[in-house]
């Protein structure tokens, strides 16, 4: 049972983790990206369509990431070039994306809701099936897919990328003191655009994982607020990759355990509030701590 929950938790963590890593970089660059949800949803749709049309999971994943990047870039332009408020623009993009997808689905397939296409190729599993014999972690290993590995590699790489590379420094400097960036001859708006496009890239991948891990169908409710959970995760982890990843893993475990707890008789709808309640509680606790430290 614990084996199963662990395996399911890792799988459920991946999309949240990818979106959170994108949003984290974006926030370090000074933009709170509330539209991760929109880009995940579009990424998921693109992944299913391309996978079915091309028969290649790799192409599908790349297409989802590319579309996410382009949308992220355009979204960034409204904020950095047109001075739009990032929160409102982000919420607007979420509404727009849901509307656009519903529209496209109705026009192309005659019904909104669920999209099932023939010959959809799922994400491959990296390790041979034999590994599932290994006690405890076997099931988890057998379920590993390329995107999950990429997600955790990015967690490991981001502290270095943000801390010790030039572009990482630019992003952090832009988020903290845009005027400094300007004074050394760089354009903060451009740096922010890059960081938002990066968030779009990872959100697109997150969507592709949601759609192509096990079922290969697209649904308008597929993301189910995961973009907002990702947002909560990097608030929770205060924009640091490892603590944020730990938060994502916690949400993944909760999600996986939720399915089990229903059988024990806990109401599933009420359990759905738990991640959001935890975010609220942790937000309050961290805030209390930092205020006390300030005194």
């Amino acid at each position, binding site marked *: 049972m614990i084996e199963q929950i662990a395996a399911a938790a890792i799988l459920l963590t991946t999309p949240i983790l990818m979106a959170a890593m994108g949003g984290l970089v974006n926030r370090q660059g000074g933009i709170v990206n509330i539209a991760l949800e929109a880009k995940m949803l579009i990424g998921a749709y693109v992944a299913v369509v391309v996978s079915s049309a091309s028969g290649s999971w790799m192409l599908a994943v790349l297409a989802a990431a590319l579309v996410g990047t382009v949308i992220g870039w355009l979204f960034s332009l*409204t904020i950095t070039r*047109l001075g*739009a408020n990032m*929160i409102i623009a982000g919420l*607007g993009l979420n509404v727009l994306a849901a509307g656009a997808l519903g529209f496209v689905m109705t026009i192309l397939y005659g019904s909104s809701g669920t999209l099932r296409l023939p010959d959809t190729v799922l994400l491959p599993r990296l390790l041979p099936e034999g590994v599932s014999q290994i006690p405890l972690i076997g099931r988890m290993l057998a379920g590993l897919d390329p995107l999950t590995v990429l997600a955790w590699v990015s967690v490991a790489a981001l502290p270095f990328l943000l801390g010790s590379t030039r572009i990482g420094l630019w992003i952090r400097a832009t988020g903290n003191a845009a005027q400094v960036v300007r004074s050394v001859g760089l354009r903060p708006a451009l740096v922010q655009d890059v960081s938002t496009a990066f968030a779009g890239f990872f959100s697109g991948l997150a969507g592709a994982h949601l759609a192509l891990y096990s079922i290969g169908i697209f649904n308008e409710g597929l993301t189910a607020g995961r973009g907002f959970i990702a947002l909560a995760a990097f608030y929770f982890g205060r924009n640091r990759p490892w603590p944020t990843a730990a938060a994502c893993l916690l949400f993944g475990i909760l999600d996986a355990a939720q399915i089990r707890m229903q059988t024990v008789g806990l109401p599933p*709808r009420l359990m759905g509030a738990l991640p*959001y309640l935890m975010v609220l509680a942790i937000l309050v606790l961290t805030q209390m701590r930092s205020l006390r430290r300030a005194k």
Partner: protein
Amino acid sequence: MTSTLFKTWLERGTGFALPVVIALAVSAVVLLAIGESPLDTFSLILSESFGSARRIASTLSAATPLLFTAVATAICFRAGVFNVGVEGAFLIGGLAAVVAGFSLPASLGWALTPICLAIAAAFGAAWLWLPGWLLARLEVDEVVSTLMLNFIAAAITGYLVNGPFLSAQSGNNVTPPVHEAAELSRLMPPATLHSGFLIGLAILFVYAIWARRTPAGVEGAFVGLNRRFSRAVGISVRHTIILAMVLSGVVAGLGGASHGLGQLYRYTDGFSAGYGFTGMAVALLGRNHPVGMLLGAVLFGALASAGTTIQLFSDIPLDLVNIIQGIVMIFSVVELGRITIRRRARA
């Protein structure tokens, strides 16, 4: 004096018209792309939403919840408080009013409706007091806290309507209907327009007076414009923030009550069709101004009520309304002045 007045109204007018024009332009392109005539569609929307007394009534009926959610949003936005939790307070207020409406004794008669409204207002106020207090005391980011509270409200109401308050008679996801005495009366039956619309207008009117003519309302605008200045002249920023949240909760709760007691007569899963977010678009479009918000609410009401009919009689999906709403939201916060300034700087 008159010229500055003219200028602000002109500014407001373009602020309202521009996002709408851009949204209509985009939807025209979308309609052309699927082989429909934009002009025909727009004139159909116009005639479907304002073509007869019955259609106007259904447009105003669809605008009713938006009046409440727009005012609730505006109260906070003008004070610089980014409350995106109106949706949650709308759900909580709606459920509270409905539960009171069927569980209190029907013998209360005419007094039942005001009691239900008061309960909804109290629940809405308490719901948004929390993020207000957290922001004022602990500087907890209100965008995240209210966003989380929306999900929590949906989960709690979703649980209650499937559990403790589930109707014994009718299947899933609904409460029993409220007593007839608790219902808000229909203004022109058989249309669904109900007296909640009048309450919404009254709230809009009170908001206009409050914002302009009362110390608390003016202080709210000051805090929104400049917190340091407000503090310097002795305004309590903390109190202003909490008050804005609580008042926003009152109005959002009343909106939920109006929807529950006037439109649906019960609480169902999917009680709100995103009214909190559409209300945000309305508030932004109207720049927190009562007249602008009234126009915005009617506009979105028209889109919603005509959209349903159009989906029935043509192949245009209702989702077009969401596309329009999203574009309106994005472009209502875009600073168009910047485009011209940049161009000048480059030249």
